[in-house]
């Protein structure tokens, strides 16, 4: 790959569960094409996919920005959803506030945020109730 930084921007639609995951899929394809190591591609794809699903389930959609450099991939997921009342609880494996309708679709197992943390090198959550949440994740190359 070249040394040029690459910037990608995506809009995640609200309530469109069927379309969720398109941004992550696109990022995965691009990272593969530019020759990123498979393990890096995998980590970014999974972390971003969980984030994208969360945005659809909990936050009326949102915006995702991805910056790719030879050193790291940085993902910023911004939403104007309800915010996370208790981040520590939300980070516990198995803790979920998703409704049964979401569980019946195979998500809402309480693994979203823990998975995002597991697959990334850094993860920061800024959240304000009634205002929204911004999650910044990086994966080192």
């Amino acid at each position, binding site marked *: 790959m070249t040394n040029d930084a690459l910037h990608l921007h995506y809009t995640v639609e609200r309530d469109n*569960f*069927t379309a*969720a*995951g398109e941004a*992550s*899929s696109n990022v*995965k394809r691009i990272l593969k094409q530019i020759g990123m190591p*498979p393990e890096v591609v*995998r980590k970014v*794809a*999974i972390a971003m*996919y*969980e984030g994208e*699903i969360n945005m659809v389930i909990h936050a009326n959609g949102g915006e995702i920005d991805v910056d790719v450099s030879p050193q790291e991939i940085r993902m910023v997921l911004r939403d104007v959803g309800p915010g996370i009342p208790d981040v520590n609880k939300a980070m516990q*494996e198995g803790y979920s506030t998703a409704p049964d309708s979401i*569980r019946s*679709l*195979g*998500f*809402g*197992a*309480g*693994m*979203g945020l*823990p*998975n995002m943390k*597991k*697959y990334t090198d850094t993860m920061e959550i800024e959240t304000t109730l009634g205002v929204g949440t911004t999650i910044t994740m990086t994966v080192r190359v």
Partner: protein
Amino acid sequence: MKLTQIAEILHAQCLTGEIPSQVEVRTACGSDMMSDVLAATQQKDVLLTGLVNPQVVKTADMLDVRCIVFVRNKRPDADLIALAQERGVIVLCTSEKLFEACGLLYAAGLRGTGAAI
């Protein structure tokens, strides 16, 4: 194990055309919860599930899963099959239940993601 063997053991039908005869698989997982599937970091080649929606294909794609096996005679619609073909994921369909399908494949030598082969 070859993917063609999996289809034989499960009496499964392939919904994405011919099964490529050279495809080898070593690991599998079975679950209806995609978040749990995503939580296991180890490579899995086959995903067995009774959940039928587009996110199953997308989950498989994110994890580089080669083949999805829909159990309990669950039939995906044409859109799901088209998505799987676009993503290069092979789709099988069997009348076996999830537990039985996993057991049959385990007995034949396929392993979960927890054990190294």
